[in-house]
């Protein structure tokens, strides 16, 4: 390792590439992001508090984080099932299913939004059958949940799938030879091994759902206090030229995003450690 590190300096271009990387990163990402906090700092603490604790804002945090949490939980369950059948079972069309799992990454969020609205609206593909039952999905918080499940699903599948693939059959064979039932070997051998990956996938899906805008607004109904997500409040304030208000709420969201990023990095480190120990 040491000899390798020393010889690495033989390659030219360190100053150029690192310099350009830091310059581009600063211009595009860091300085503009700092603008949020600089702008917020021009407000007095009372003004900031008034903005971020307004009833409409508080209702939107509850809605945004509540639906994001619920969607991530649904995705953790069904993402695990999908990863399991993709790794462990063979069935016709498996390659196609495997490729299409990434659809929410590739499909523009606005397209997903109008498609989901067309499915779950009162007269929509599925909505028309739910309407007589008194169930409404579009233009209620349930619609937001559906959109967030859509965009979060691949995160869980794609973090759990490689770990399941790397998990050798030997572990379960050893458990079975020691007299474990299939249920015991799955819950005591397989689940603990994939738990870090599953938690990481859950956190990634949650973090993405918290900031999501495009797929949600078409199906949410966007009623203040009921179905208005936090990113929409920022947009509304911007459209009213209330830059200070928009920025204060954006600062709250950014701080939460950074905290989530930290948690995800710690989870991934845990996941990597677990992977090394098993190997």
């Amino acid at each position: 390792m040491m000899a390798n590190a020393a010889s690495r300096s033989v390659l030219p271009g360190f100053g150029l590439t690192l310099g350009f990387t830091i310059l581009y990163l600063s211009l595009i990402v860091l300085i503009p992001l700092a603008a949020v906090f600089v702008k917020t700092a021009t407000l007095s603490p009372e003004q900031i508090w008034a903005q971020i604790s307004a009833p409409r804002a508080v209702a939107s945090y509850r809605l945004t984080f509540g639906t994001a949490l619920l969607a991530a939980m649904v995705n953790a369950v069904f993402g695990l099932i999908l990863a399991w059948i993709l790794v462990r079972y063979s069935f016709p069309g498996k390659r196609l299913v495997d490729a299409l799992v990434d659809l929410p990454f590739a499909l523009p969020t606005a397209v997903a939004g109008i498609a989901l609205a067309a499915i779950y609206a009162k007269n929509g593909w599925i909505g028309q059958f739910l309407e007589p039952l008194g169930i409404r999905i579009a233009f209620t918080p349930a619609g937001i949940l559906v959109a967030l499940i859509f965009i979060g699903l691949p995160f869980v599948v794609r973090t759990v799938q490689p770990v399941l693939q790397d998990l050798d059959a030997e572990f379960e064979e050893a458990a079975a030879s020691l007299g474990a039932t299939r249920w015991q070997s799955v819950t005591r051998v397989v689940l603990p091994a994939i738990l870090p990956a599953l938690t990481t996938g859950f956190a990634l899906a949650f973090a993405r759902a918290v900031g999501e805008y495009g797929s949600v607004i078409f199906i949410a109904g966007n009623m203040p206090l009921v179905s208005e997500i936090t990113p929409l409040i920022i947009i509304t304030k911007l459209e009213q030229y209330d830059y200070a208000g928009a920025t204060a709420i954006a600062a709250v969201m950014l701080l939460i995003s950074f905290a989530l990023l930290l948690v995800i990095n710690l989870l991934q480190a845990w996941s990597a450690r677990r992977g090394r120990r098993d190997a």
Partner: protein
Amino acid sequence: MAGATSALSASQHFESRSATRDHGLVRALLLILGLGFFALFLVLPLVVVFAEALRKGWDTYWAALVEPDALSAIRLTLLAAAIAVPLNLVFGVSAAWAIAKYRFRGKALLTTLIDLPFSVSPVIAGLIYVLVFGAQGWFGPLLDGYDIRIIFAVPGIVLATIFVTFPFIARELIPLMEAQGSEEEEAALVLGASGWQTFWRVTLPNIKWGLLYGVILCNARAMGEFGAVSVVSGHIRGLTNTMPLHVEILYNEYQFAAAFAVASLLALLALFTLALKSVIEWRASPKSEPEARPKEPLP
């Protein structure tokens, strides 16, 4: 690991052994639950886009695509991607070279900072440029003096697109180049190649599949971005409307068939991206180490 063939044989291996074989009922239940969820949440929305687009026939479909506002939205989307993707490509290669080939302090922090745009809400990605270049922003009054407009104009759309697609290529190349090491480059230099020759003839051929993979994902997001672009666009028809914004306007005007027609183009782009992605994963898997091509989740 990314190859579907190896996954298929692995699943047969699991299903052939009693210790890893699930009970038939469990297997059936999980298949029904998993594939049912997949059909309801992923396949149905895709089908709906094309069905709604063609509901009023091919003539209406075609008319919605060749209408001047739609054409100018398509042009602007292509322009934004044509600027954002190459810039992020140069950045991605440069960042991966610095991070993968050298050791320095703060490397982990730099890698985290590069991923930062993925954890920022698209709406905030648009807001930050309004704060910097908007009428009330840091440089707004200065730029106004020179009659330069960034917000509610094309440069703002390009900037917002660059921000949201910033990490794609870098985060694809960093683990790949780290796994490959620097021995081949060192050998080229010892044999008398210049730095640029080493890059073009040794490094680039080694990373081409990872690079292409990053580029297509970056491009899909660049063409499909909605939230960030929506904040900086100002929604001026024919001037600052991208395809996703055009979809929104048509939809809000109850021109559903036209909205879904434009949306179907974006859905085709998504399907093309996924197909290309699968081909690259299949091409790259037999050559490179399994660890070098992890199926990582990409926001």
